[in-house]
């Protein structure tokens, strides 16, 4: 499933990486502990988090994640956005909380698989 499909269905606000929304999303990972995300997320995952500081871009780049979704209408910090633009990492903002955001995306991916 392409990232723009998720953007459309969850009405996400695109804050960076708009040229990169056709990237394939193969799964998702939820977490605010960076060591957890670094260790356990997989390439192609969309990362759902509450962290908005710039180091999330380094994590997403290192793990080849499809994009970062910030929950609860939390906006990325200015430096985060700068880095995300530089690395062409999609940073998206969801008005929903973590649980609802993850649940909806899980359902979209599951529906595609059946």
């Amino acid at each position, binding site marked *: 499933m392409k990232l723009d499909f998720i953007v459309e269905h969850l009405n996400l606000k695109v804050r960076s990486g708009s040229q990169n929304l056709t990237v394939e999303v193969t799964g998702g990972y939820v977490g*605010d*502990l*960076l*060591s*957890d995300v*670094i*260790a356990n997320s997989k390439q192609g995952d969309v990362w759902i*988090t509450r*962290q908005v*500081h*710039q*180091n999330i*871009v*380094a*994590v997403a*780049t*290192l*793990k080849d994640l499809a994009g970062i979704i910030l929950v609860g209408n939390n906006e990325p910090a200015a*430096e985060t956005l700068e880095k995300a633009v530089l690395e062409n990492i999609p940073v998206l903002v969801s008005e929903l909380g973590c649980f609802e955001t993850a649940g909806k995306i899980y359902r979209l991916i599951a529906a595609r698989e059946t």
Partner: protein
Amino acid sequence: MAEKSADRGTSFSESFPVVGGNFDDAGKVSSRIKGILKKMCLPSDVIRRAAICTFEAEMNIVCYAQQGDITLSVDNDRVVIKAVDEGEGILDIDLAMQVGYSTSTAKIREMGFGAGMGLVNIDRYADEFTITSEVGRGTQLVMVVYVADGSQQ
């Protein structure tokens, strides 16, 4: 940024400085190293595990030390990442190796670091891991990831 060894052929070695407390550039060395390993066309699993180890070592220097150096060495069989810092050192390494143990500050934790997972992750993803430390001077990590047969992705 770094000094290169004069080694030729298949062996490669390069060092990168890491500045303690500088969260602006945190992760930069890990990205550089991952890029170098990618260019060498090492197996993706080797790159992934080396990147995890490097990131954790880099973040430890940023979070806890004044400064440090990360050295990447690659030959046919192995990727060796050495992280040496000047910092306060670790009093009880066995304790530091326990899941969830951390001396991090509230500020570090707020950013999602300092969960007491870093050294544990390194231990899990490196094929060899040694840690030595001297209180008041610094810590040295040596992490080895074996390159399996062949060098294709």
